[in-house]
């Protein structure tokens, strides 16, 4: 969903640029608390993995393709604030080196595919974690579902930006239906990839997964309590 230059007018692009700079600024402050000895070695690698996976367009219905956005996967693996930074690095490199995603649209792309998918992916993940069984096996499930929801939401954010500052006259209802329709399908791919990737790390080192911390902490407490009771 890389937005090219020219789709949105200058004021809208400047506004999303300001939002992106603010989000990255806050994330730079907050990420320090997430970057401990366990997540720090993985942060750059998660960004590299998101970049690699974004090259892999998978086919969805009707001669269309889609690729991972990566906010949910990054948030669950290394934390939401670090996730915003990791995805932002990806979009900056893509725009400047690979001419993918407009340069004036860089703020828009960071807001849509970085900030939005991190916020929605992480939010849904945490909400599901609260109701699902507290096991590490549920972490990839919650991550995948968060990822699935994050993609159509990002497409809705694009539609609302287009409603404000789109450079062509496209009926809003039509645009909404088309964008959300195709991005629900792309979201399924996002969910599957996120489930598999988070599941792979959970299988070997659950303690390296930021989003698994509450589950592991709860389990440790149970073990200790059981041990004390015996």
């Amino acid at each position, binding site marked *: *969903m*890389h937005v*090219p*230059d*020219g*789709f949105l007018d200058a004021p809208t692009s400047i506004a999303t640029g300001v939002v992106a700079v603010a989000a990255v600024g806050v994330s730079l402050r907050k990420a*320090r*608390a997430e*970057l401990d000895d366990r997540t*720090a*070695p*993985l*942060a*750059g*690698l*998660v*960004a*590299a*993995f998101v*970049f*690699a*996976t974004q*090259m*892999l*367009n998978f086919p*969805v219905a009707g*001669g*269309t*393709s*889609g*690729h991972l956005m990566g906010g949910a996967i990054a948030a669950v693996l290394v934390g939401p604030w670090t996730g915003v*930074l*990791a995805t932002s*690095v990806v979009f*900056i*490199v*893509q*725009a*400047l*080196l*690979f*001419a*993918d995603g*407009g*340069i004036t649209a860089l703020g828009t792309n960071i807001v849509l595919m970085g900030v939005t998918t991190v916020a929605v992916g992480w939010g849904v993940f945490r909400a599901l974690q609260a109701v699902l069984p507290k096991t590490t096996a549920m972490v990839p499930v919650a991550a995948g579902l968060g990822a699935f929801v994050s993609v159509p939401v990002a*497409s809705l954010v694009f539609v609302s930006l287009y409603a404000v500052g*789109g450079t*062509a006259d*496209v009926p809003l209802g039509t*645009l909404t239906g*088309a*964008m959300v329709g*195709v*991005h629900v399908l*792309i979201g399924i791919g996002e969910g599957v990839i996120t489930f598999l990737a988070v599941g792979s*790390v959970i299988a*070997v*080192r659950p*303690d*390296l997964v930021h989003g698994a911390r509450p589950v592991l902490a709860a389990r440790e407490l149970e073990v200790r309590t059981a041990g004390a009771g015996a």
Partner: protein
Amino acid sequence: MKNVSTRAVAVGILLVSLVLAGVVSFYAASTPDGLTKVSEDHGFADTETDHGAADSPFAGYGASFVDDDDRLSGGFAGVVGVLVVLAAGTGLTLALRRRPTPDDARETQDA
């Protein structure tokens, strides 16, 4: 907890990323992505303007100096991208970890 070192996990993620970007990417779908297709179907694809980095040697996920082989060109661009993103991401991480401010220490205590 199984006995897999953090280093092994890191090397694993790096290798998977390099293979995905360097090799598997050649087999990715070449049909337009969701937004591109919608813009074509609904008549606003032509509002796209020239890209400021169109002259980059890696524009469009190719390597302009490898003309005759799409597989090599795209794979090379993918590997370069993975390494550049890794370097930028890791550099940023190190910079953030190296400079804790008194402000952060207070926040940690409060948490």
